Structure formats: structure tokens, C-alpha cells
């Protein structure tokens, strides 16, 4: 008891001056059910300890002050009192003697001695002067001149007091702020009818003034409502006032599109984002797709990694692989920032847009277990292949002249070979080589989350195990994850979150190697000989890839990552907020490749100490990053809002790897470095270190005038260790304007729910070179060892004038929603002009270098994006939605350098299967340049080329190449439709591309350029020239020279595909309860159901495409 009293006195000291309250908040009334939780909670708030919740009260006091009496009642009953402090002071003393009486009785006894009245509202007791008619106290306004209103503002989710919230009386405008206990006391003016309560990060709330003088107001946090904010990764912006182009969706939405691939889902939902089609790699689970947002901004001959958007997860920059391997259940929201207005915050890294991922926070302060299972069954898709059968193949070989010789002895041998094969085929040999390396691939992805804690402190544990097996035998990608997260809300507006995660990915490539090895094989070859032994050698001296696959060779790697994220937030007052985020991550990786000594690669090597090879790369990295953001929000005159965000970020990346190789393994299974006989001749271990730091500061101002007009401005300064001291910092800015037309009085608000015009412009940047290119850097190297010391030489002559590549972005957009949001549309047009593009410039060699980097190139992307959906039906039971995401992007090179022209010449001079890129001013980076073809000469079976001057010739000259078209489609995107019936919903996503030109590799290499010793497309027999007079599409069947890049192989491609057909069912709570769960839902997703294309071409030559079904089950206990 004594303890309690001391606590109470403590409490009293902290009580606000203006009003006096002895309460357990109304909120607690709702929570009464869990007594324990209430007690803990009130303890933690230094509120009144209420051990005894007895309804009956025993009280014996004589001439005690009202305060004492009420306290005692509260202690015994757990009821809280709300009353004006002045009433307490003015009140007379009370005498009372009751024993085990109900509270109502006791209160009556107390208050009949006083000029006061009371009202019980749940567990709260309101005390008022007696004249007030309590029966009518919920009427909007009464005649009594109420001059002071007291109240408390709490967080609806946590029940915590909100200090620093602004409470404003309307229409008079008198305002006050809540104190640290969330309590306010507001002087009302005559005519005031409402109060407006606002707080940063919370939804503002307007309530009518009650005619009693204490009010509880609960505010909801806005960040839980994705629709209302734009997550920038550094701070959240209100969507209402946002002037840039962005696209947001929740983790659930992603999962509803594609549960097995985060990247696929993001690009399907974002107009303007495309995954670059890599036809060769098919559905290889170990191959990351390339993502492109609004076209390319750098020249590249090979992969698109330089054009990849920046990925920011909870404020930390992560790699594409991190996103690829992420547990989809962990994602709260994904926001794609497309234009300068948003992306300028990341300045020097944002030239290709930004993908911001926010992971889920701890859901609830109660013990909950959530289990998610994603399963997938994938079947190989052979539909693109149309190969010769054994008889056709033999026929092709014969026509190609493989069995013809001028030498009669040789001819005799060839004849017998032919006859043998013919006999074999007749005896029924027909090997389906394509089926050999393929299989049905199963995927299982288990994810468990256990959360718990109290309202002040919450924690979550999560674990994940995912096993992906592709459709090629023996490959796989296993993902393990484990995480712990804790959130704590402390006093004075502080809150902390810490999240530690461990992730590991093991991946193994299929030992069967490239699928193309199998397509080539001749169907008349048998896998096994008559003794059941595997044939090592097949027809035409080809090695049997199945034999290779049976050896101990492997190619595997693993990576693991330990990452810790720490977030702190301090709500200084209602206007200011300080947030900070820190991440430290440790990564490790290993790549191991082993080539068995028994491999056919060593068939000519006699020295056993040189057979077999093990190649190992170990990498490790320590990266950290942090940011600090100060936000200021202020509302002026009711509906003008000023928001300022300023902050700084730092990053440090230090990754290093070492590679070494051993040769000479004496047995197939001794694939460990210990058994290596030696190093390969002349090869030494090597290593790479990639170390860089950068930091930036930004300042963002957003002002909204009368909720209608918006101005937004960002200034960002970036510094990078890649630059010299003189040119270290780059400056980026953006500005935007917005107009919420729907808030104008002349608009019909019933029809137009949302109509917003917005426009933005600004710079984003990119650093796309190594530090030594700007800053003369010396390097020590072991080959520079001199007699009495080691030498150092400059890696290159630094160009101190190198600047950041800058992209000027212009964006204009409209957002519209009509008829109660039945029709929604977002459209954007943009122009992105990249200047100072860093490219090589050829220099006079007497400078000491032959090429130097310089900011010479210019490139432009223009495009349109559209997202639209319509609810044809929408009611409680049924809804049917139709929608589309479309994009159109045109790339144009404005300026290139002499070096790139040289690269063009090189690319031209190389004979390759498909034409290599040609970079020409005025053309797109993806334009297709080939020599015009005049068809096949009917007399000779040779191809006729048309020269630039119109002359016809048999001689191929790459300088006759003309641009035929752009490989990028004119329009691409998807059309989707959603049907929902009660708890069942079905969605279909149809993808399409239109108007892109494609160089048909199958026709070029499998019909025309085919090697007669390999299997080929069936068109080889039907469409090739065979004898004079044939009007054929393809050259002489006996001509096995490599095909030339000509217009004959260029086709315009239009495709339609059903990418995803998804069905989901959300079980009712009653059903869920029946199996002991709180929530249960089930989803099914069929991928790549069909694909129609105007181009008949083999896809997935290195790795097969697959089609199949994904299942996902979510259970919450």
C-alpha cells in the first residue's frame, strides 16, 4: 500500500496544471477483457496501479477532501474520474462510511453532498457542475457557455499518449498543443463548434465539441495506409501533395500477382518497368532478370546491370539479388519512384529510378503465429522446338552432302555409315534428347513468423526455408532466412526498431550444362550401347553430354548475409520529427567450379597431373549505411500545409574476393583443393577489392495551398569517393507542381473523386566508372617488383574534370478517379535526357593512354505510361474489374564519341550469330542494323545482298547495313481482369508486346546456318534451296557457312501471352476457427499458360522455359 502511495505522489507531481484526471483511459475500457495486459500497461505508463478491481467499495472518511475520496474510489474500483481541477479545489470536504457497497451507491453518497453531478461512461466517471443536463451531453452544441475544453489525444493503435499534437478550435482558430501526457486544455471562443486535431504522421481528425469538458481523441497512424503516402525510403510523403510519378503496391498485391517471383510481380504492376527478355536463359532460377525502368541511360554491349534501378530496402541500398531472394511475405510495400521529383533524393544513384521496399513491421502486440507456404510445380515447355525426327535428320544429312565423296573408297565408307544409321532408325531408335536433362521442378517455400510482446515493446521472430528446383535436372536454389525484430515505444515520443536477419542462398547449376547441347544431338543416336553402357561418343564424334553430366563436375555457389537494421524515431513535438536508420551488413560468398578429370575436355591430355580443375572464389564484404532525417510539418490556416524534410545519408561498401585454381585431380570424386596436384601454368591467385564511400545531404520542401495547389522542391548534394577532391560533390535538384482539381468548388465531387494534374522536372545522376578514372591512382603490382623495392604505376591518367552523369527528367501526369472510384486512370508522359554520358574517347597514344573517359555522350528516352482500371460490377457479392498497364518508350542516341564509332566497326567486323549493337546518333541503342537482302538466287541458292547504291551482289559487306527497326516494342504491357465472388477471386494477366523487331536466331542458325551434323529445325528440309529453279527462303541446303546478318531474318514481333491466371480464396473466420486458426487463405497461380507470337523461334536455348502452377497458403494462428 505504501508503495502505491509513493507512486501516486509521483503521479501527482506529473499531473498537468490545467485539468485533473484520474483515469484509466477509455481505451482501457475496451481492453478490460485481458486484465493482465491492462495491469502491465498501466504500470508501464506510471498510471495508477489497480490491483483490486472489486466493484464493491468500502470507504470510511471524515471531512476528507474530494480528491482523497475520489482517489480511494479509483483505487478500489478501477474507475477513472474526469473533472476540471478547479472543481476539486472549490469543492467542499466529504464524509462517508460505506462497506462493500456498489460503486453507484457510493458515488451517489459522495455527490449528493456536493454541487456536482456524475455520469458513468464505461469505466470512466465524468464529474460536472450539477446544473448540466448530462442526459443531453452528446448533443452537438448547447446553450451553456462552455469556455474550456480538456481532453487527451492517444494513438489508436498503441493507446499511447501523443505529446505535441495540435488541437485547434474551429472556426475561431484558437490552438494549443498536447503535453507529454497527451493532455490539452483549449480555450473556446463563442461560436466554436468543432476541434481539429492533427499530428505529424497521423491522420487529422475533426470532432464536434461535446458539451461536457473532457474528450478522448484517438488518431490513426497514416503510414499503414499505403494509398495515402508515397514511401521514399527516407521519409514518407503525403500522396495528396506528391507531384512526381510513382507506383506503390503492398506485399499482398505482389503475392496476388506472382507469389514465386518478386521481380516479375513488380514489373507486371508497374507501367514503365520491364524485365529484359533473355530468351537464352528461359526459366533458370539461378539467373537474375534485368530490370529496366523507362529505358536505358548508358551504353552497354552486354548486360543491363548499369541501367538497373536503385533498390532501397528500409533505407539501405541492396542488390538486385537481395531483392530476388527476398521472402515475399516480408514485404509490406513496394514503391517505384520513376521521375526526378522523388528520385532526386537519391541524386547520384537515381538515374534509373528507385525501387523502395519497406519490410513489414511487427503486426501486433499479441502472440501470433503466421505460416505461409508457397509451392510450385513447373513443367518444361518444349513448344518452341520443332526438331527433325530421325528419318528427316538422315535425309537432311544426305542432302547436305555428308554422305557424298569424290573418292570412291571414302564413298564406300560413307555409304555403309549411312546404311547403318538407316538400319538403326528402322529398328526403332529414336532418342528424345530434349527430355534427358529436363524434369518437373518442385518449389517449396515455407515462411513462419511469430510475433508477440506488449503494447510498448513488440518482437517478432521469423524463419524461412525455400527450395527452388528448376526444370533442368540437378539444379537448385535454396534460400534460408532467419530474423529477429524488436520494436519499442518509449516515453517522450521516442521509438526504436531493431531488426537482425540472416540469409543464405545456395545455388547449384545443372550438371547437364546448356540445354542447347541437347537440342543439337541427333535423334538416331542411342544413349546406351547394347551392353547398357553409356555411349561416350555419339555420331559425328560428338561427346555425349549425358556422360559429362554423370561425372563429378559441378558448378555451385553460396552467399550469406548477416544484416542489422536499426531505426530510431523521435517525435520532438507536433511539428518536428527526427528519424534515423542504420544498417550494417556482412556478406560472404563462395563460388566453386569443378571439372572432372574424366571429362571429355581432357581427352587429348596425357599428363594426369593436368587433368581436372577446381576453381574457387571466396568473397566477403562489410557494408554500412545510415541516414538521419529531420521533418517539419505545419498547418497554416486550416488547409495550407508546409512540409520540410532535410537529412543526410552515408554509405560505405567494402567487398573483396580472391580466386584461385588448382589442377590435377586424380579421381572424379576428389573435388577438394587438398587433392590438387598444382597450379595451372602461369596462373597465380588473384583478388579484387571494391571499396567506395559516398554521402549526401538533401533538402525537400513541399507546400500545399488550400489543399489544391502543390509545390515541391528537392535539392540534393552527393559526394563520392570515386571523385577527386576538386570535383567530389555533385548537385541534383527537382521541382514539381500539382493541382488537385477535385478539390475545386467548380468540380462535381460526386462524379469526380480524384482529378489531379502534376508535373515535375529535375536532375538525377549516375556514377558509372572506377575511381582511378577521375583521380590518378597508383597501384602496386607484383610484376613491378624491382631489384631493391616494389614499383607502383598509375592505373590510368585521371581525368579530374569527370562529372557525374546527369539525367534531366521531365514528367507530366494525371490521376483520375470517377464515379465513386469505379474508373481509375493514371497516365504519365516523360522525357529523360541524359547528358554528360561517360564514354571512352580515343586519344593520341603519345598522351600515355589510348582511351580516356569523358562526359561526351547524350541520350534521350521519351515515353508514355498508362494504368487504367474499371469496375464493371462492384457490390457486396460480385465485383468485376478490367484494367491495363501500358508503356511506350523510345530511346534515341543524341551524341556519341569516336571510340563508340570504333566499337561499332569492331562489332561489325565480328561474325556472330546475332548482329551486335550499333550505336548511331539519331538511332536507338536497341536498333537493329543488318544488310538488306534480295532473297535467295533461284539459280545458285546463294543469298543476294543489296548494296547502299542499290546494286545487287553475292558479297556480304557489313558497311551496307541499314537500320531495319527497333528491338524495343512500340507498346508493351498487360491487360488484367479480376472477378470476385464473395470470398473467391480470380485474376488473369495477359501480357502483350507490339511492334518490336527481332532477329530470328532460330531461322538464322537452326534453319539456314545449321550444321548438318547437328539436329535442326524442320524448316531446314522444307524451306531451303535444293536444286536450281527452287524458289526458296533459305540458302542451298549443302551450304554450311555461317549466316550473314541480313534482313531475311528480321521479323516484326507481336506477342500475346497469358502470364498469370490466379485464383484466391479467403476462408471465413468461422471456418478458420474450426481448424484452430484466426485467418486462412489459399491461392493458386498458373504461370505462362499460353504464349502466341508472330515469330516462330526457339526460346530458352540455354535453359528451358517452364510453365506450371504455384500454390500458396497463409495461416494465422
Amino acid at each position, binding site marked *: 500500500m505504501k508503495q502505491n502511495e509513493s507512486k501516486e505522489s509521483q503521479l501527482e507531481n506529473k499531473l498537468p496544471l490545467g485539468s485533473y484526471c484520474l483515469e484509466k483511459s477509455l481505451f482501457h475500457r475496451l481492453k478490460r477483457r485481458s486484465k493482465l495486459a491492462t495491469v502491465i500497461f498501466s504500470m508501464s505508463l506510471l498510471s495508477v496501479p489497480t490491483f483490486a478491481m472489486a466493484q464493491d467499495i468500502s470507504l470510511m472518511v471524515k471531512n476528507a477532501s474530494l480528491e482523497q475520496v475520489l482517489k480511494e474510489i479509483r483505487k478500489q474500483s478501477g474507475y477513472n474520474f474526469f473533472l476540471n481541477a478547479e472543481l476539486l479545489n472549490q469543492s467542499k470536504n466529504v464524509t462517508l462510511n460505506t462497506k462493500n457497497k456498489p460503486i453507484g451507491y457510493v458515488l451517489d453518497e459522495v455527490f449528493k453532498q456536493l454541487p456536482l453531478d456524475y455520469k458513468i461512461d464505461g469505466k470512466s466517471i465524468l464529474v460536472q457542475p450539477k446544473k448540466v443536463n448530462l442526459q443531453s451531453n452528446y448533443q452537438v452544441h448547447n446553450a451553456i457557455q462552455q469556455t474550456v475544453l480538456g481532453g487527451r489525444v492517444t494513438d489508436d493503435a498503441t493507446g499511447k499518449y501523443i505529446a505535441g499534437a495540435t488541437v485547434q478550435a474551429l472556426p475561431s482558430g484558437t490552438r494549443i498543443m498536447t*503535453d*507529454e501526457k497527451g493532455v490539452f486544455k483549449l480555450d473556446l471562443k463563442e461560436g466554436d463548434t468543432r476541434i481539429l486535431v492533427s499530428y505529424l504522421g497521423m491522420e487529422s481528425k475533426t470532432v464536434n465539441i461535446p458539451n461536457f469538458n473532457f474528450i478522448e481523441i484517438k488518431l490513426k497512424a497514416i503510414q499503414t495506409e499505403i494509398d495515402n503516402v508515397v514511401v521514399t525510403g527516407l521519409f514518407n510523403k503525403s500522396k495528396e501533395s506528391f507531384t512526381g510519378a510513382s507506383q506503390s503496391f503492398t506485399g499482398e498485391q505482389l503475392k496476388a500477382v506472382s507469389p514465386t517471383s518478386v521481380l516479375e510481380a513488380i514489373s507486371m504492376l508497374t507501367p514503365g518497368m520491364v524485365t529484359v527478355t533473355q530468351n537464352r536463359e528461359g526459366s533458370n532460377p539461378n539467373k537474375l532478370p534485368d530490370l529496366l525502368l523507362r529505358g536505358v541511360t548508358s551504353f552497354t554491349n552486354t548486360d543491363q546491370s548499369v541501367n538497373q534501378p536503385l533498390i532501397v530496402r528500409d533505407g539501405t541500398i541492396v542488390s538486385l539479388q537481395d531483392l530476388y531472394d527476398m521472402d515475399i511475405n516480408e514485404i509490406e510495400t513496394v514503391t517505384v519512384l520513376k521521375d526526378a521529383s522523388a528520385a532526386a533524393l537519391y541524386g547520384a544513384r537515381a538515374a534509373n529510378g528507385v525501387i523502395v521496399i519497406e519490410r513489414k513491421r511487427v503486426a501486433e502486440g499479441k502472440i501470433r503465429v503466421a505460416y505461409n507456404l508457397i509451392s510450385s510445380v513447373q513443367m518444361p515447355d518444349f513448344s518452341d522446338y520443332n526438331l527433325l525426327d530421325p528419318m528427316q535428320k538422315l535425309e537432311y544429312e544426305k542432302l547436305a552432302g555428308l554422305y557424298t565423296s569424290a573418292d570412291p573408297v571414302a564413298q564406300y565408307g560413307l555409304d555403309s555409315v549411312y546404311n547403318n544409321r538407316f538400319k538403326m532408325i528402322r529398328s526403332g531408335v529414336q532418342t528424345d534428347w530434349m527430355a534427358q536433362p529436363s524434369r518437373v521442378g518442385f518449389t517449396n517455400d515455407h515462411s513462419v513468423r511469430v510475433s508477440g510482446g506488449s503494447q510498448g515493446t513488440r518482437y517478432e521472430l521469423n524463419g524461412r526455408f525455400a527450395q527452388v528446383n528448376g526444370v533442368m535436372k540437378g539444379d537448385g536454389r535454396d534460400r534460408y532466412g532467419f530474423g529477429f525484430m524488436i520494436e519499442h515505444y518509449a516515453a*517522450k515520443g521516442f521509438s526504436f526498431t531493431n531488426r537482425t536477419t540472416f540469409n543464405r542462398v545456395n545455388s547449384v547449376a545443372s550438371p547437364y550444362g546448356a540445354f542447347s547441347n541437347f537440342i543439337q544431338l541427333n535423334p538416331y543416336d542411342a544413349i546406351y550401347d547394347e551392353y547398357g553402357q553409356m555411349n561416350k561418343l555419339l555420331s559425328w564424334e560428338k561427346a555425349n553430354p549425358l556422360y559429362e553430366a554423370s561425372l563429378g563436375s559441378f558448378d555451385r555457389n553460396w552467399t550469406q548475409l548477416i544484416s542489422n537494421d536499426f531505426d530510431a524515431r523521435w517525435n*520532438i*513535438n507536433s*511539428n*518536428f520529427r527526427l528519424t534515423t536508420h542504420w544498417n550494417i551488413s556482412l556478406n560472404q560468398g563462395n563460388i566453386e567450379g569443378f571439372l572432372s578429370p574424366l571429362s571429355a575436355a581432357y581427352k587429348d591430355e596425357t599428363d594426369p597431373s593436368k587433368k581436372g580443375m577446381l576453381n574457387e572464389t571466396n568473397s566477403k564484404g562489410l557494408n554500412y549505411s545510415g541516414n538521419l532525417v529531420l521533418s517539419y510539418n505545419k498547418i497554416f490556416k486550416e488547409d495550407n500545409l508546409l512540409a520540410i524534410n532535410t537529412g*543526410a545519408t552515408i554509405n*560505405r561498401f567494402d567487398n*573483396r574476393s580472391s580466386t584461385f585454381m588448382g589442377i590435377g585431380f586424380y579421381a572424379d570424386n576428389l573435388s577438394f583443393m587438398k587433392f590438387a596436384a598444382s597450379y595451372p601454368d602461369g596462373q597465380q591467385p588473384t583478388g579484387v*577489392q*571494391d*571499396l*567506395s*564511400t*559516398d*554521402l549526401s545531404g538533401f533538402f525537400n520542401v513541399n507546400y500545399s495551398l488550400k489543399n489544391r495547389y502543390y509545390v515541391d522542391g528537392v535539392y540534393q548534394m552527393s*559526394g*563520392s*569517393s570515386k*571523385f577527386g*577532391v576538386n570535383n*567530389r560533390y555533385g548537385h541534383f535538384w527537382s521541382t514539381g507542381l500539382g493541382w488537385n482539381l477535385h478539390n475545386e468548388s467548380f468540380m462535381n465531387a460526386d462524379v469526380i473523386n480524384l482529378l489531379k494534374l502534376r508535373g515535375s522536372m529535375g536532375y538525377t545522376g549516375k556514377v558509372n566508372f572506377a*575511381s*582511378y578514372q577521375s*583521380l*590518378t*591512382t*597508383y*597501384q*602496386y*603490382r607484383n*610484376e*613491378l*617488383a*624491382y*631489384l*631493391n*623495392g*616494389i*614499383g*607502383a*604505376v*598509375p*592505373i590510368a*591518367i*585521371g*581525368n579530374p574534370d569527370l562529372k557525374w552523369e546527369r539525367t534531366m527528367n521531365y514528367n507530366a501526369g494525371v490521376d483520375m478517379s470517377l464515379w465513386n472510384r469505379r474508373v481509375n486512370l493514371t497516365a504519365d508522359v516523360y522525357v529523360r535526357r541524359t547528358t554528360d554520358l561517360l564514354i571512352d574517347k*580515343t*586519344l*593520341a*597514344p*603519345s*598522351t*600515355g*593512354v*589510348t582511351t*580516356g573517359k*569523358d562526359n561526351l555522350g547524350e541520350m534521350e528516352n521519351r515515353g508514355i505510361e498508362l494504368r487504367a482500371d474499371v469496375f464493371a460490377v462492384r457490390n457486396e457479392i460480385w465485383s468485376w474489374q478490367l484494367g491495363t498497364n501500358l508503356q511506350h518508350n523510345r530511346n534515341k542516341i543524341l551524341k556519341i564519341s*569516336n571510340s563508340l564509332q570504333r566499337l561499332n566497326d569492331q562489332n561489325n567486323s565480328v561474325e556472330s550469330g546475332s548482329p551486335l549493337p550499333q550505336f548511331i546518333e539519331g538511332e536507338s541503342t536497341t536498333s537493329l542494323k543488318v544488310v538488306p537482302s534480295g532473297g535467295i538466287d533461284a539459280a545458285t541458292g546463294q543469298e543476294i545482298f543489296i548494296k547502299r547504291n542499290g546494286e545487287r551482289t553475292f558479297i556480304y559487306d557489313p558497311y551496307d547495313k541499314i537500320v531495319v527497326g527497333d528491338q524495343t516494342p512500340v507498346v508493351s504491357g498487360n491487360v488484367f481482369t479480376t472477378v470476385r465472388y464473395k470470398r473467391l477471386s480470380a485474376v488473369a494477366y495477359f501480357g502483350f508486346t507490339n511492334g518490336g523487331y527481332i532477329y530470328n536466331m532460330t531461322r538464322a542458325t537452326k534453319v539456314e546456318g545449321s550444321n548438318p551434323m547437328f539436329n535442326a529445325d524442320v524448316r531446314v528440309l522444307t524451306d531451303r534451296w535444293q536444286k536450281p529453279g527452287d524458289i526458296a527462303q533459305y540458302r542451298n541446303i549443302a551450304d554450311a557457312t555461317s549466316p550473314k546478318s541480313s534482313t531475311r531474318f528480321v521479323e516484326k514481333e507481336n506477342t500475346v501471352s497469358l502470364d498469370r491466371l490466379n485464383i484466391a480464396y479467403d476462408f471465413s473466420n468461422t471456418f478458420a476457427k474450426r481448424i484452430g486458426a484466426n485467418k486462412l487463405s489459399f491461392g493458386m497461380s498458373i504461370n505462362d499458360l499460353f504464349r502466341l507470337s508472330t515469330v516462330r523461334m526457339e526460346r530458352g536455348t540455354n535453359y528451358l522455359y517452364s510453365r506450371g502452377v504455384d500454390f500458396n497458403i497463409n495461416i494465422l494462428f
Partner: protein
Amino acid sequence: MKFNIKNNLPKLFTVILGVCLTVNTSCNKFLDIRPVGEITGEQLLSNPEGFESALYGVYASMNSSSLYGRELSYDMIDVLAQYYVCPGNLIVENAKKYNYQYVDVEAKLNTIWGDMYKNIANVNNIIINLDKMNANSMRFYNLYKGEALGIRAFMHFDLLRLYTANIQNNENAEGLPYSVKFELSPSSFSSAAKVYEYIIADLLAAEDLLAKDVEYFTNPKVNPTEPFLRDRETHFNLYAVQATLARVYLNMGDKANAAKYAQKVVDSNKFKLMTANDFATDLQNGMLYPTETIFGLYNKTNYTLLRDRFWNYTTSYSYSPRPDLLDTYAFEEEPVDYRISTYFKDNMLGTGPVKRFIKLLDKYQFNEELQYARPANVIDGTNLIRLPEMHYILAESLLDSSPSTATAYFNAVLNSRGLTSLSNRNTPLTLTLERITNERYKEFIGEGQTFFNMKRLNLPIMNTDNVVVPASNQVYVWPIPLDEKEFNY
């Protein structure tokens, strides 16, 4: 304890300002990072260790295979001097026909041009950074700068000898860029005469700066503990500067000055012609000559390549000495030329013993029995200037003015190679320019000097097929890379 932003605003700003100031300096620190083994030029070239590393880098780069480690010592340049045959090797075949337009030959010549200038640029960066410093700030400041200036002149001189016409034939010969910069814009072309001026100016400056080598360069060698002062013959030392000056003047036709500087080197007494005994033990093969090398580069990774090229015999890769080469050594009725037995050795091939050229093969690796007997003081490497050349320069320069002195210098070399003096022969001989040239041909095989000598004297060349190629600019002037012409405007 209420936080009032208004009252605390001034305080807040002070804090922010303070943070900003510390942040600004620490920001720059945060951004000043390099991966292991990389260091910015500014940081490296600020202290003695850094300058020494940079100089070692320059010497090591000079010894790369595209420069003196191969092409400019024993390979391309000696192929042009018609020392070897290598049937089936298209590069060698075309080079021997002076077909510089042949694509692979042209590529090699272009690489030589580029890599020479690359190393010159590196030297320039050293000089530029030295100039920024106080000469008294480092103990060996003068050595660093003298060596760097010397190398710059030395490399430009070789470029000039390779890519421009002989100035003795054409006073107004076109020159090349004399690069003193370390930046991405090229230096413009200067006339050959102007380039000579620059070279001489740099060398004279280097001579002054390296004056202390009189102390540092010891004979017999006593190596001090200071690493930079050890093995001065592997650095571009004072005598290398003087010897180069002698070369340069001789090349310009200024015999008086050529003789003056050659004399300086000879009179320094730091070098000694090898004795017959030295030759008998073929101390020098693959090494810097213990007493004769004025300047050479350290290199010990060349052995395998040299062995495959000169000792082993595989077509299209291995060079054989031209068939009549050995005859030249026996030409003057002298029984023993020590160079025959030390430079050449029989290798038993399918058809019997064949003479192979082994002068450049490290004898301690070549002869397995000696593998562990390597003395401490021998230095593997490439000889770039040796004492006999000074004797030849003196002999040639003094031939007209003082024939007896000239003959004495010439005889000294003959004697050290086991040959009798000209006057002591059965039929006494007189010294002629042709004799000097012949001696040079025999002495400098594998050292890249002969082609320059032929060019200087504008000699017609007797090729390995015994056909005479008349002297012309097509033979003696390498084409300047097209890129240089296109982009140096």
C-alpha cells in the same frame, strides 16, 4: 521538461553549425579511401618512399615485354637487324622485309609507341610532383629528379631513333611529341632537331642532379644499406646520362661532344672491360655484365620465354641465329673469340648439333647443376648501355682526329674478347668504320643496338637471305601510329 523548439532554436542552430563544420572535414576524410594496394598519386608522390616506388614502377615498366624487356632489346629490333631466322613466323618474315604495314607488325610498332609514351607520362608525373616540392625536403631529391629526367630523355631518344628520319640525312626531319605532361591532352609534334634539343637539355640537367653518383657508384661495388643507393647500374645513374649523351651526340654527328661524354664514362673508372677469364666463366649470360654495364634493367621473369625462343626449337616461335652469323666471329683469322663459346651453344636436335643463341639465358637456370650456386651479386636483367659502346664511340669519333687513340680504345675491347690488337695481327690491320660496325654487330647481338647503328650510318642491310636491302626511310623509319596522327592535332 517540455521541449520548446522556439526557445531552443538558437541552441539547435549552434549545434547544427558545429556538426556541419566537423562533418565537412570528416566528410572529406570519409570519402578519401582507396582499396588495398591503391593509393592516389597525390598521396604517393609526397614522400621518399612514394617517389622511389614510382621510379621502380617506371624501371619495371621499361622492362615490360613490349619495350626493353623484349621488343626493343632482343626481339623486334634485332629481327630488323637481321640477326635471326624463324621460318613460318609471319611477323618475323614481314619484319625482316621491313613491311611495317603488315597488320601484326604494325600492331607491335603501335604498342611500342604507346607503351613508351605511357611510361614517359609516368616519369613526367614524378617530375611534375618533384617540382612541386622543395629540393631540400628529401635526401635523394636530386637523384629522383635526375634519374627521372634521364629516363625521359633516354626513352624519347629511342622513339626519335625509331620513328623519325636520321637527322644526319635530313636536318629538317619531322620529329615527334616531346611529352612533359601527365594529362589527357597530347603534346604537339616538334621537329627532330627540336626534340634533340629537349633531350640534351634534360640530360644535361640530369647530369648535374646526379653529380653525387661519383660517390654512390662504387667499383668494386660496395652496397650501402640505403636501398635506393644499391646497385646503381639498375638505375639511370650519372654514367648512364653521360653515355646517353655520347650516343645522342654521335647520332647527331657531333663527334667532339660524343667523344667528350664517352671519355667521361671511361675515365670515371667505375667500369672495366671484362677479362678473358671473366668470359671463360660466362659470368654475364642473362645477367647485367658485372663490370661493364652502365645501365641495365633488373628482370628475372624472362627465363622461360627466352629459353623457348632461343634454346628450344619449335617452328614459328623459336629464333635461330642467321646461318652465317658464327662465321662473322671467326672472320678475322683469329682463333678464339670468347663470345663464340659464351654466346652460342650446341643443342642436340633431330639432325645433329645446332648452334643456339644463349647469351640472354640466365646461366644459373639454364645449367641445372648451377641452380643452387648462384652468387649473391649477380643481377638478372637486360643490358641497355655497356662500356664497350663507349669504346666504340670513342674509336669512331676519334678515328679521323686521333687514329692511334681511337685504335687503342678499339683494341681494348678486342683484347677483352680474346682477340689480338689490330696491329699485332699476322697481317696488321688498320681501324676503319666498317671494323667498328662489325664489332658492334658481334658485340651487341640481343641488345637492340645494332639496328640503330645501321640507321645512324645509313647502311644498306644484308638480310638473312644474303640479299642487300638498300638504306631508305622505308627501312629505317617506323610509321607513326595512325591514331597519333588522327588525334594529335
